[in-house]
């Protein structure tokens, strides 16, 4: 395996980490309106992700940084090409980050309410937009010979990309509900599980349509028929198992399964792309691939050594932080956010 291929896999792994982790805190943010009924419940919800959301977001920054370092051309084409959606994602992440910190700094219901709406909106939009981004990438974007992309409205927004955005949003929402079933207690826990069951059905429908659309509107099943079918099969199995687990109050397993579902979905997207990183809808010859978009061998070697040295520590203390805050969150204890 060439180093550039390895880095494609590593970047996929970082995005799997991002959707597995930030996926549930996006879902918790969505639940602040779809599940919580009052401000007290919203406070509990926000506090379940309190110690984690910031570190979860770093996975996205690491993904961006890794693309920059390992595939400068991919980074340049994608970030300048997807200017507007990324701008909106940035505004959301800004609003989201400060809202957690600000929401109860002033003792006023209205104050808290304003920041809670920001949390809701900024937890709903980014997964949708990132879903749109990744699926439209899969369908192909107007990338010219000079690697620059000048896309029009219908390149970004079309049936396939909207459906992709919707599906990713639902997957994150479900993952968040499972997290809440695992991390809250009493009424909230019961309602989170009940809502999760309904969302499971919506996801089933959404995934069927999405696979159908992918079959007709992208070439991923032509490029990688057998691997993609196997991944789809495992996605279905994961959500089936998740449904069973949440129905039988095995919340840890339910959470694991919805995380696995997200991880497999990201894998399906990256497997469909490979060896391309950006597909040109104008001409196959203009595709950006892991070979023509990557950094030189020396740079990749340095980055590989650095990544494999640091990543075990990151994973170690991340797991430790989840272990420290493993207890369920209720309003019987003090809530920081």
């Amino acid at each position, binding site marked *: 395996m060439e180093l550039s291929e390895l880095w494609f896999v590593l970047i996929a792994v970082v995005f799997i980490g991002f959707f597995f982790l930030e996926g549930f805190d996006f879902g918790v943010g969505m639940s602040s309106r779809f599940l919580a009924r009052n*401000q007290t419940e919203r406070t509990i919800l926000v506090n379940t992700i*309190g110690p984690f959301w910031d570190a979860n977001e770093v996975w996205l920054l690491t993904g961006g940084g890794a693309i920059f370092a390992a595939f*400068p051309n991919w980074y340049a084409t994608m*970030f300048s090409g997807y200017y507007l959606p990324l701008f909106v994602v940035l505004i959301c992440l800004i609003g989201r980050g400060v809202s957690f910190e600000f929401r109860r700094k002033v003792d006023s219901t209205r104050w808290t309410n304003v920041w809670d709406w920001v949390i809701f909106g900024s937890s709903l939009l980014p997964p949708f937009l990132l879903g749109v981004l990744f699926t439209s990438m899969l369908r192909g974007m107007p990338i010219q010979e000079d690697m620059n992309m000048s896309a029009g409205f219908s390149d970004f927004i079309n049936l396939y990309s909207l459906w992709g955005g919707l599906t990713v949003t639902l997957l994150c929402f479900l993952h968040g509900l499972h997290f809440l079933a695992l991390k809250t207690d009493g009424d909230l826990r019961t309602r989170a599980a009940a809502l999760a069951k309904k969302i499971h059905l919506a996801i089933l429908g959404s995934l069927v349509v999405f696979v159908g659309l992918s079959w007709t509107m992208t070439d991923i099943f032509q490029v990688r028929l057998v691997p993609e079918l196997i991944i789809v099969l495992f996605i279905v199995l994961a959500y089936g198992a998740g449904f069973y687990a949440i129905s039988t109050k095995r919340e840890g397993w339910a959470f694991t399964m919805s995380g696995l579902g997200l991880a497999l979905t990201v894998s399906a997207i990256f497997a469909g792309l490979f060896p391309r990183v950006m597909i040109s809808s104008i001409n196959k010859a203009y595709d950006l691939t892991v070979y023509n978009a990557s950094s030189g061998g020396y740079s990749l070697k340095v980055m590989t050594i650095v990544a494999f040295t640091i990543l075990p520590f990151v994973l170690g203390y991340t797991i430790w932080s989840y272990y420290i805050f493993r207890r369920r969150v209720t309003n019987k*204890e003090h809530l920081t956010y």
Partner: protein
Amino acid sequence: MDPVILARFQFAATTIFHFFFVPLSIGLVLMVAVMETFYVVKKDELYKKMAKFWGHLFLINFAVGVVTGIIQEFQFGMNWSDYSRFVGDVFGAPLAIEALLAFFMESTFIGIWIFGWERLSKKLHLACIWLVSLGTALSAVWILTANSFMQVPVGFSIKNGRAEMNDFLALITNGQLLVEFPHVITGAICTGAFFVAGISAYHLLRKKHLAFYRKSMKMAMIFGLIGSIGVALSGHSQAQYLVKTQPMKMAAAEGIWEDTADPAPWSGVALIDSENHKNTFELNIPYALSFLSYSKFEGSLKGMETLQKEYQAKYDSIVGEGTNYIPPVKTTYWSFRLMIGFGVLMILLPIIGLLQLRKGRLDKSTLLLKFFLAGIAFPFLANTFGWMMTEVGRQPWTVFGLMTTADAVSPNVPAGMILFSTIMYLAVFTILFGVMVYLIVREVKKGPEQLSGHGTHLTTDPFKVGA
């Protein structure tokens, strides 16, 4: 409008705004870590109260610093895609390492620190804040590694039509980094120290919580003095390095058009006529520039006219005939002077303050305390002017000697889009800044006794429970 101007304006505005919070975070978290260390070692509850109160203000600031920083990482690709293509092989690595090594550490341990007061042992909790502090410092190392490459590019060769890394060790031992990092980090220590000192002075003026704020004030003045002397010393070595590596920036910062006499005088005030390449008025301090540049009272500096000719001979083949290599002189000149001016005030204030403290007269020195309150702004201004000098003075280059700013911008992003996003960022930043100042002033007025500010319908004080 010209996309280059707009993209530059966006970069300047978002970076200056971001760097308002960054040095305060770095400096404040270090002080909080020291306070908590005193608490754990001396078992004095006052130090715990200090760690919590200042930690509380740190967190409000940290949140804004983190979110405004995300823009920076995305912006290179969004507005400067040709730059990213050309130097990504070298420049991307420090950014990726920053995320992997520093951001994860900061954000994970700050989460544990905020939520872990009751769940961890004292020592483990203390270790968390030190790891956050280490994380902020490491973050500075890597982002300054990236910036240093733009000032003094090293560790690369031009291959496949772009800059490719060929020596990672050279990149992280860049001479520019070795002078830039100490300067930035001591500047950050000053920022935290003057923030704590100013707020403490405010309370001492009002005769509130005297024991608490006296202790905070003393500690802040010591940090402030160490920081400001460090800033001056590292600034001196940075100036010497600048003369060697980017003489044009130094000449612009001094308003030197023709080569100086030997020994060279330092320009205190000059009225610069950048159109006609001359100064209409000058007030000079003899010998001082030679000392600043070479640490001895002899030696001359080249003027911008000479350097323009030298640069033309050297770089015109890369960037085109007749390029103007002279940066905006007035901005460079005055930001350099303002930085130094505030830096001098930052040395004087803590010296006078500590002397007054020794005589036991600090509480009664009303005027001095008022100066300290105003002094909160000094490091912020010095930091900002320092970066303006560094970045504006490097123009027309984005990477010195390799790529001009005009060549770096995204060719496929319309000017209207950059204008729109800039306006939106500024709007959001204005709101954030207003809210943050409002919250900090509120918390400061409340003082250390009623920390919370959180809602009362669930619990009262996030730090009080079980404490």
